[in-house]
Structures are given as C-alpha cells and as structure tokens.
C-alpha cells in the first residue's frame, strides 16, 4: 500500500470520527429536551402551547413564572400598542403572583384542567369565565354561566364587558387584573 493512500486513510478516518462527534452534538442541540428552543419559536406555536404552558405554570414556584412571564411581556411590549395591557396578574387567591403574558389569545379561567389558568378555588366553576381581545384589541371578560358569578369591580357580569386597566376581576376568592 502506498504511503499516500495510507496517509489519506489515516486523516480521512480522523475526519470521519470527528464528523460523527459533530453530528452527535447537533442531535443534542436540536433535541426537544431543551426549553430554549421552545422560547425561540415566537408566535408560531404560541397559541397552541398556551394552555399547556399555563398549566405547567400553576404548579412550580412563583419566581419562575414571573420571570418567564415578565420576559415574554417585555418582548411583547415593543410590539403592542401604547397603553394596551401586556399581562394578566393574579393578585389574590391561591395562585397570587402568577402572571400570564397577553399575546392576543383567549384565556379561559376555571377549575377544568384544560383552562389557561387553572383555578384552585372552591368557589370557581370548572369553566368559569374567559378573557379575550375583540377586533380592536380591547380585552373583554365574559362569564360562562358560572355558579357564583364573575365580578368586575363590584358589579356582577351579565354580558361580555371591556376590562379597564387595573380593574379587579373577582372569581370566588381569586382576584385578577390586567396590567401594562
């Protein structure tokens, strides 16, 4: 065997070996294990992943929720209109401190497991209320025929009602408000 062939094979083998290592590392990078990938996927999966994500948020410690919510809200704020609310904050009740970024999706509230915000509240119905943007981007709250009713400030809701910034929405023992 000529010297040249052997040298080519020697270096070729090393190249292929390193290629394997690089391919393996690429597999890890694109591995769905990582959460970074999910966050980078901006609006595309946002609407669908919303319910899942909020459910996951209901359990872990509050700091993390605020971090992720806050970060998303920051990014959102650049795009959103001036004066429009960017996040929904639970200010009282067992979920106090939870924030959900408003990204144009409908937020359902209730004890049902597929709600965006799963209320752990004896006085909430399984499908209690929903909050959604109308065509102008104004956020509306609607009671979904709950047992104990949904209150905006002091008044019990009967029809879908626009939500002023910072007005408390009371559901059982839970109080929610929209903030910038």
């Amino acid at each position, binding site marked *: 065997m000529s010297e040249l062939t*052997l*040298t080519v094979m*020697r270096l070729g083998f090393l190249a292929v070996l390193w290629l394997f290592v690089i391919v*393996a590392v690429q*597999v890890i990078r694109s591995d769905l*294990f990582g959460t970074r990938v999910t966050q980078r*996927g901006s609006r595309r*999966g946002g609407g*669908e*992943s919303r319910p899942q994500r909020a459910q996951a948020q209901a359990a872990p410690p509050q700091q993390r929720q605020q971090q992720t919510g806050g970060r998303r809200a920051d990014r959102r704020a650049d795009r959103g209109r001036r004066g429009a609310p960017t996040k929904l904050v639970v200010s009282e009740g067992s979920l106090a401190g939870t924030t959900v970024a408003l990204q144009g999706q409908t937020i359902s509230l209730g004890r049902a497991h597929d709600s965006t915000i799963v209320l752990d509240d004896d006085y909430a119905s399984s499908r209690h209320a929903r909050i959604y943007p109308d065509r102008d981007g104004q956020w509306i709250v609607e009671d979904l025929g709950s047992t104990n009713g949904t209150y905006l400030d002091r008044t019990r809701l009967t029809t879908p009602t626009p939500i002023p910034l910072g007005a408390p929405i009371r559901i059982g023992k839970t109080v929610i408000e929209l903030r910038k």
Partner: protein
Amino acid sequence: MSAMPSMPSSAGSNTTATTTISTVGPPSRRNTELALLAFAVILPCFAYANVGLALNGEMPSGMLGYGLGLGLLGGVGHLVVRKFAKYADPLLLPLATLLNGLGLVMIWRLDQSERLARLAKAQGFTFQPSAPNQLMFSALGIALFVAVVIFLKDHRILQRYTYISMVVALVLLVAPVFFPGKFGAKIWIVIPGLGSIQPGEFAKIILAIFFAGYLMVKRDALALASRRFMGLYLPRGRDLGPIVAVWALSLVILVFETDLGSSLLFFGMFVVMLYVATERTSWIVFGLLMSAGGAAVVGSVEPHVKVRVMAWLHPFAVYDNPRPSWATTEQIAQALFAFGSGGVFGTGWGQGASDLIQFAANSDFIFASYGEELGLAGAMAILLIYGLIVERGVRTALAARDPFGKLLATGLSAAFGIQVFVVAGGVMGLIPLTGMTMPFLAAGGSSVIANWALLAILIKISDTARRPAPAPAPSPDAEMTQVVRP
C-alpha cells in the same frame, strides 16, 4: 412543548398523523438513533479496512464477519429500544456501539501483532487472539442490555431493593479478597473452568442503586441539619456516618484488594451523589479532604500501592542503571512513549508500535494504543464521545421526574465518568495507574457486559423521563362548586 414546526422532526410518522389543534407528543427520535447507529457501525468497518490495508496491503478477510456482527448487535439493541423504550435518548446507544466497535478493531489489530505472539511464546503461553472473545462478550453485553430494557418495566422498582443491593454490592466487593490476585490486584473472582469475572464492574451499578435509594430517604436530614461555619455548612456529627462508612469501605478495598481504581470510583460516586442530593458544597470539600488524606496514608504504607505511586512519580526509572527494585514493568513508560510518538494526528491504524506495552496493550492500556495510532485528534474525539455519554446521563437525570431516577442516573453517569478519568488519567500519568478498564473499549468481559447493563438502565430512565405524562385525573372537575351563601 410545541415549537414543533421549526424542528427538523425525526419522528415524521408521529407528527403528521395528528391534527394541528391537539398537542403534538414529543418525537421519539428513534430514526435519528438509527441513522447515527448506522454511522457508528460504518466507522469501525472503515477502521477495520484501514488496519488490514496498513498491515497486509489487502482488505482483511474477517471484515464482513465483524462488520455484520457489530451491525447485528447494534440493530438488535435498536429494535428493542424502539419497541420497549420508545422515548429513550437517541444518542446513548450509537455512542456506546461506536466505542464497542472501535475497541473491537483495536483489539483485532493487536491480535495481528507478531511481537505480542513472540512475547507470549517466550513466556510459555500460547498466544490467543482476544477479538473473537471480545465480540462474544459484546454479544453477551447486548443480551444483558436487551434483558434489562425488556424486563425492567420501571426503574423505580429498583428502589425496593435498596438494602438488598447494599448487601449484594458488599459481597461482590469483598469476594475477590478470597481469590488469588492477578497482576498485583485482587479484583477477580475465579470460577474454575469458566474463567474469571471482575465483580467491581457490577458492584458499581448495584452500589449506585443503593446510594440512590438511601440518599432519597435521608437527604433532608443530611441537607438541612447543619451548622454554618466559615461559609460552609457543616453537617452534624451523626450525619457524617454514611460518608465515613463509605470512605472506610473504599479504604478497605484499597488496602486488601490493592485496587486504587475501584476505591476512587466508589468514593467519588458517593460524594457526587451526596452533593446532588443535598446541594451542599461542604460534602465535596469533605470528600476531597478525606480521599486525599486516605490516599496519602495508604499510599505511603501499603507496599503494593506504594509501588504504583513510585511508578507514577518515576515512570522511566525502569530504564535507570542500576534499576530500582520496585520498577518491574516498563508498561507506563511505553504508554507515555506511545502517546508521544502518536503526535497530533497519530501514526495511522496498524502502523503504531503500541504492542510494545505488551499484554495489557488491549485492556488497561488500550487508550495509549489509540493515542499512538489516532494521535491527539483521535484520543480527544474518543474522550468527547465518553463526555457525550456522561452528558446524556446527566441530562436524563435533569429530565427525570422522580428523585430516585434523578439520583440513579446521576450516580451511574458519575461512575462512568470517574472510571474514564481514572483509567485515562492513569495511562497518561496524571494519577497513579489503577487496574480498571476503559468502558466499552478495552478487552475484558466483565467491563463490557456491566457497562451495557449500565447503559440499559440509563436508557430506561431517559425513556420514562421523556415519555409524555399520562392525562391528568379529572378530580377537581368532578367536585361540586361550592355556592356562596349571601
């Protein structure tokens, strides 16, 4: 979650079937594994052809057999994982197969060495090629891998056997004391007529199970009951019990079996798991101090360990004139020569002279053989592959949902990593040489079989960790809403 569309999804069949509204399950990534596995089988075949061309100038005759054998082993492993551990990590199996395949090639290459054959003849042995044995052991390893993946339905079952595994591990560790030592270390159980096994390799897995089960129960006591002193959390005296016990055990191994490697491995694994379980840095500090103290005392007292330390400090003393009495083997010096003559890109497959390391060139010193024939570039790639296996193990531990699985995965990958460090460090002269083998690469039945079992447990844990959670029970919906009475 569902940033799926942007991903080059490997599990096409999974994702296309579901509609866009429902949430898409995580891809199983089995096809990625298959592709990498094919790569991992082709690579050793290439190396094999390379050896044949360099040594004899023709394609080696047994190439088809070894290539098919390795492919068959990997294929069986893959099919079983596809069926029984669908969501397992896609990298572990291909990486291990590649290492096993490369190990087979190097062992076969050293079988061709005339120098080793002459040496064996001069010493009165008949020279036996190790590659067929190694292939058989790999097959046994894959068989154990398959058995573990199929029959271990849930790794949490192992938790039930916490204290039984402690007893079994102790028996395995102590047993070699009653058998004659080989090459200076008593780490073998000799079964007449069948050969010998190295129980330490299996004890490593079983001890990890015990540590994980024990620490899961005791970690709160170990983590919370402590006093603060000079920025460190000092544990209470009675909580020091377990670490002292394991330390004493590893010292006993060191003294009676003169095996530095196992001793380092078990103690290191325990300290890592203790740290992971309690998040207390003080355990690491204690562990390092205790192992340094213990090693210093034993290294200066126990004669066999002393010889190893001397050989580590003065590797070339064997060539001195007059030769010191403790310098009996030139293996370490030859291993260092091998790394040196390999240089950056190596001498090429089959063209090195690593058979000068004599009979251990394909077992304990196999890493030096790679260092010579593949050079720094190849040795680094191999170390990276080991690193990737450890990384996947730790990633599995992060993803695991139950504390026992987390601790077990951490312990197993730590043991794997420490073993690689101890062997590679010993061969390169960083630490005293020990009687352990490179996982998957080196010739040696116990090592290959035990490490395939270790890999199977990791694969099982990662499968459980990545498997989508079952639908939550609708309990809160079922309860009646309480009515507010005005």
